[in-house]
């Protein structure tokens, strides 16, 4: 029966739209490229600026300050292992890509989350879009990313942002909505403006939840690293990909292990960032 109905030209429509965008909004894509490229380069440069060992000690110290000595010790050993295996530069590139994707996700995601938190209509429109973004196989994002931004790190960042932004939006929305009704009433009753209410009451109280969302975003961005390397993003993903193509189990394991170490360090670091602030509200 399905054969009797002509196939809907969905693929054609999408291609038309994409080529129109390419032709007419190309300047926008160039502009975005010109923002992302230097950001990634900057983060990489920061991580590569000092001698590796000094950077490792500094990161471990930061971890100690933000959470516990146990995690600091793990960070120290883990990062030294990465350096020893010779993946320091690739790790720096990967971390830079993840950080850039995260920063962009926060800049875009938190305001959208706030909008959803304050407005039911916005939430009802945006929630299905987020579902779509998250259920679509991550590979699919690579195609438009490559078309608009060609090969390299930039489309990798873009694909990571699309894939990893939803948790930040969702949890910001949740955090705003979780602020108890009587606190909102109290804030209104004392004559707060909408923005005073947001910055003095809602955001501070939603902070822990928002941080949980950002933590998830970082993890998702990291999980995109290997996929992004397929379109030419530099870093550990590239090393894994090469190892897979050449069936070098040992090299693949090393690079994979490095990703896991970075994942654990970033996870612990950002997890404790939210909680730590909750415990010490006065600084």
């Amino acid at each position, binding site marked *: 029966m399905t054969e009797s109905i002509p196939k809907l030209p969905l693929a054609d429509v999408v291609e038309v739209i994409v080529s129109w965008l390419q032709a007419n909004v190309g300047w926008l894509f160039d502009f975005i490229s010109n923002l992302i490229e230097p950001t990634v380069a900057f983060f990489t440069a920061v991580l590569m600026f000092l001698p590796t060992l000094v950077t490792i000690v500094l990161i471990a110290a930061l971890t100690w300050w933000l959470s516990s000595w146990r995690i600091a010790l793990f960070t120290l050993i883990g990062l030294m292992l990465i350096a020893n295996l010779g993946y320091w530069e690739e790790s720096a590139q990967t971390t830079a890509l993840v950080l850039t994707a995260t920063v962009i996700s926060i800049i875009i995601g938190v305001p959208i989350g706030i909008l959803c938190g304050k407005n039911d209509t916005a939430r009802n429109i945006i929630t299905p879009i987020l579902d779509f973004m998250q259920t679509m196989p991550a590979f699919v994002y690579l195609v438009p990313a490559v078309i608009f931004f060609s090969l390299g790190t930039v489309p990798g960042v873009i694909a990571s942002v699309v894939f990893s932004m939803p948790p930040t939006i969702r949890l910001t929305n949740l955090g705003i909505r979780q602020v*108890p009704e*009587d*606190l909102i*009433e*109290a*804030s*209104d*009753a*004392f*004559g*707060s*403006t909408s923005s*005073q209410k947001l910055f*003095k*009451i809602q955001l*501070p*109280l939603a902070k822990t939840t928002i941080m949980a969302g950002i933590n998830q975003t970082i993890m998702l961005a990291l999980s995109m690293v290997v996929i992004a390397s397929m379109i030419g993003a530099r870093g550990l993903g590239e090393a894994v990909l090469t190892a897979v193509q050449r069936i070098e189990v040992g090299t693949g394991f090393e690079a994979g292990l490095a990703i896991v170490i970075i994942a654990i360090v970033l996870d612990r670091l950002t997890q404790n960032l939210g909680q730590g602030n909750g415990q010490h*509200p*006065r600084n």
Partner: protein
Amino acid sequence: MSKIKVENLTKVFGKQKKRALQLLKEGQTKKDILEKTGCTVGVNQANFTVEEGEIFVIMGLSGSGKSTLVRMLNRLIDPTSGSVFIDSEDISKVNDDQLRQIRRKTISMVFQRFALFPHRTVLENTAYGLEVQGIPKNKREDRAMETLQMVGLKGYEHQLPSQLSGGMQQRVGLARALTNDPDILLMDEAFSALDPLIRKDMQDELIELQSAMQKTIVFITHDLDEALRIGDRIALMKDGVIVQIGTPEEILTDPANEYVERFVEDVDWSKVLQAENVMKRAEMITLDKDGPRVALNRMRETGLSSLFAVDRRNRLQGVLSADAAKQAIDEGKPLADLIERDIVKVRPDTLLNDIMVQMAETNHPVAVVSDDDRVRGVIVRGSVIGALTGKEVKTHD
């Protein structure tokens, strides 16, 4: 002129508001309207005024609409129809900006569950109202410190709310509301979440603060004892309707309907009635004028065994017993030497509860005297017992 004037204030929750309003005007009940329109009537055509410096209590059980009513006074809930005049300005018609100014300057609110901001210190909570007005930090914190001191929280200003007990948290809530120096204080079940002893302390403190501040207070409660304790006037609500408005005594002694009657059934009368509600006319002799024989004669006439002795200006000197009068005749002594001068005196507004304690310690009747010691009446055991059973109570004029 009244500080707050509420006219036909109505709140309907639901979609068919217009139809529900129409039905309300036709006098249909909350239940019928819910069935016909699916709308819930929160408050039904409330009318009342609150005078400056008055504590006006709105009392009712949960679901009676009292919280909705108080939230319409500062428009945390927008009225469906009707008006709220504050200083003769109809706040149901002001724009957002004016409303914000009124909330900042004129009306503050204290909440049932305290509603303190958990991420802010006691001081920052207290200064919040001034902070949103853009008042410089040192100035607003000075002011906040003053109010914290007023509610007895000096030394706690850098704690977080979660580090304080319930009673102390609500003191912060009160301080936060007072820091703006508003004319009107809305207190929504402010003490209901506190345990009974703390609640009583807070009530006492509110009354004490009020005598110094003279704010206009609208106080919501479901607790009759609380309403009677602190209210100058009480409005009783049921199903969104104000059933009766009156002074505590009017509510108690002259309940408007069966609902109010049932409400006041369990009240502890000894904490409500005052000396002047239970006193009887005192029989007296005037020392400089009347002799012992006159006194004995009057005792015989009235069937009493003792009389109050007063001077010519009706000031209480003591109590004369029948035995002492006889002794005066037998021994020819002046009455002034034989009267018992050590007697219990109470003011007309002394609570029955306090009088009972003093009565237990004396065999003489208790004298009710005005500030200048003039006798206003007498309290005997029989009239106290009568009053406690809820009968034989007269209101003063």
